[in-house]
């Protein structure tokens, strides 16, 4: 039971990280559909760094940097050159699939050490809960910290209010005197770093070796999670755990020999995404104030 919960948590961390980053990006009014691509580059960056420097912690940093790099490409085109965000995000994923395939080719067949668990003094001795919550790895702690920080940031801090303002009405933000493009750059870059770390987590903890397209649609599920969470940070935790649970249930089912074909079980996370989107979307279309109003719209500043 304990190990089952631990695997569910581990499976949901990449989704949690990537979705949190995308939430901040979208709050600023940028729709980055390239999460899958940023996660892929995070994964390959982490693998490369760990093989080279032989320390899993460098994997986290490398993952963040790789995701950041991809986010920069996205920002140049969508924010500065005002290209269509949907198409550019798609292009970013296609680009990253190619680039990581190329960069990952020499890594095939090599295995990296896993990210070590960190026991928190005393707390980890609490029975059951201690093992689940306080014997986690750095990224797991980090993701929860980020969620808490972001909740505070968006709600109470002035920069957070400014970020929401830019996503709400970029023309007003410009009139009041805020550099809309710069703020969107920061938000997109933050999203890229988070997605990169989420991607890095996959080789660092889940499957310790490279295979092409190893994120397997997690980036897209992360995008759906943001909608599922109605742009409220803590709900991402719930969503990510649900999806982690479904993924693990499917693996458990396969292992225990449930009389359902494995492929059908593997469909569960994707089908669940569609169902979740449907339920949330029909609710959102009645109450669309939760969606950042300038989401996906390019900003043109006259000077």
């Amino acid at each position, binding site marked *: 039971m304990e190990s089952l919960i631990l695997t569910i948590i581990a499976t949901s961390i990449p989704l949690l990280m990537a979705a949190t980053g995308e939430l901040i990006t979208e709050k600023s009014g940028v729709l980055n559909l390239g999460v899958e691509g940023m996660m892929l580059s995070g994964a390959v960056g982490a693998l490369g760094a760990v093989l080279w420097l032989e320390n899993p912690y460098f994997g986290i940093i490398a993952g963040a940097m790789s995701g950041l790099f991809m986010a920069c490409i996205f920002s140049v085109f969508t924010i500065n050159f005002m*290209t269509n965000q949907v198409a550019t995000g*798609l292009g970013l994923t*296609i680009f*990253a699939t190619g680039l990581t395939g*190329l960069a990952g080719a020499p890594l095939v067949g090599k295995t990296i050490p896993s990210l070590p668990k960190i026991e928190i003094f005393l707390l980890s001795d609490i029975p059951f809960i201690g093992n689940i919550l306080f014997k986690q790895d750095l990224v797991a702690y980090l993701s929860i910290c980020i969620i808490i920080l972001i909740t505070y940031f968006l709600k109470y801090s002035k920069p957070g209010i400014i970020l929401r303002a830019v996503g709400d009405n970029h023309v007003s933000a410009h009139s009041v005197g805020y550099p809309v493009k710069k703020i969107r750059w920061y938000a997109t870059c933050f999203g890229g770093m988070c997605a990169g770390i989420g991607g890095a987590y996959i080789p660092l903890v889940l499957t310790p070796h490279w295979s092409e397209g190893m994120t397997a649609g997690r980036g897209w599920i992360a995008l759906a999670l943001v909608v599922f969470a109605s742009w409220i940070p803590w709900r991402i935790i719930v969503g990510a755990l649900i999806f982690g649970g479904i993924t693990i249930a499917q693996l458990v089912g396969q292992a225990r020999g449930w009389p359902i*074909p494995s492929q059908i079980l593997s469909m569960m996370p994707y*089908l669940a995404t569609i169902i979740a989107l449907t339920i949330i979307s029909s609710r959102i279309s009645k109450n669309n104030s939760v969606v950042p109003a300038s989401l996906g719209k390019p900003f043109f500043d006259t000077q």
Partner: protein
Amino acid sequence: MITFTPRDKVSNSWTLIGPILSIILTVIFGLLIFTFLGFDPAETLYQIFISPFSRIDRVSDIFVKACPLIIVGIGLMFCFRANVWNIGAEGQFIMGTLLAGSFALLFPNVETKLLLLCMFFVGFLGGALWAFIPAILKTKLNVNEILVSLMLVYVAMLFIDFIVRGPLRDPMSFGFPLSKPYSDGALINKISFPGIGYLGQLHYGILFIILLIPLAWVFNNKTLAGFQINVLGSAPKAARFAGFSKERITMSVLLLSGGLAGVAGVIEVSANIGQLQPEVSFGYGFTAIIVAFLGRLNPVGILFAGIIIATVKLGADNAQMTMGIPKVVTGLFEGILLFFLLTGETLQKYKIKWSWNK
């Protein structure tokens, strides 16, 4: 600092210059990346862009490869023109193939090509049905079609895998996940040129393209439906004011593009594979997105775009064999190309000014 000023009139010269310049820039950037990763740029350039033209049979293979790209690309063109983002053509391709293939396998000993004709319809139906899911969710419940159609790609991949390993597996396949071979009536023959014979894998399926491109052009420019799609895409409120139904158009373009993706799958498998297997598409559905954009959402443009992208795909295959570059690298080129194409669209609307102070 870069500053943009809106042009008084959309620059028409950019319509052609944009894509050409994008291709040139893509080649330059791509080669820079290859050099950076330690590959010989001259050799890569030759393998990817020149080698596909080195022999006549290779040239005809370009058309074979371009065939599904162009068909799917034309379907997506309708969607993108209407501002509907179907990015799940890959899944629709698979489901069209699967349904048509299952249909073909019901008739194991049929010689007549009538079977093939029926498969076209069944394939269209299969693709359209798969596109119907995002379409109905979009029009009735306002669910984002991007995510739904994409999720359905994974579902379709798993589903065909299940069918081919399970119910439709050929008991004689020695454990390989393959269906029984299609009967002759379900196959598309290679074209035999008098005096020359076969040219590579060139098959009669490309006749469908020759038919499809003028039809698509007429549809865009001469029919009310094409006009409605354009208006909806460029000014949705005006479309409503004109009395065009957004729901109906969205539904139609999704079904049409799904159906065409299904037909592309039928042609691909009937001409080149001849049986069902877990992998039938090789990413055609995704690549076709780039093809549609490179072709500037115009049927004739998509024809050329399909040929260009197919060249790169074949070139990448060659590069994999001779230089050991993984063939997913085409994605690299496709991504960069898309970035530059989209930038070109911006430059069509805005004049650009560079200044270095501040």
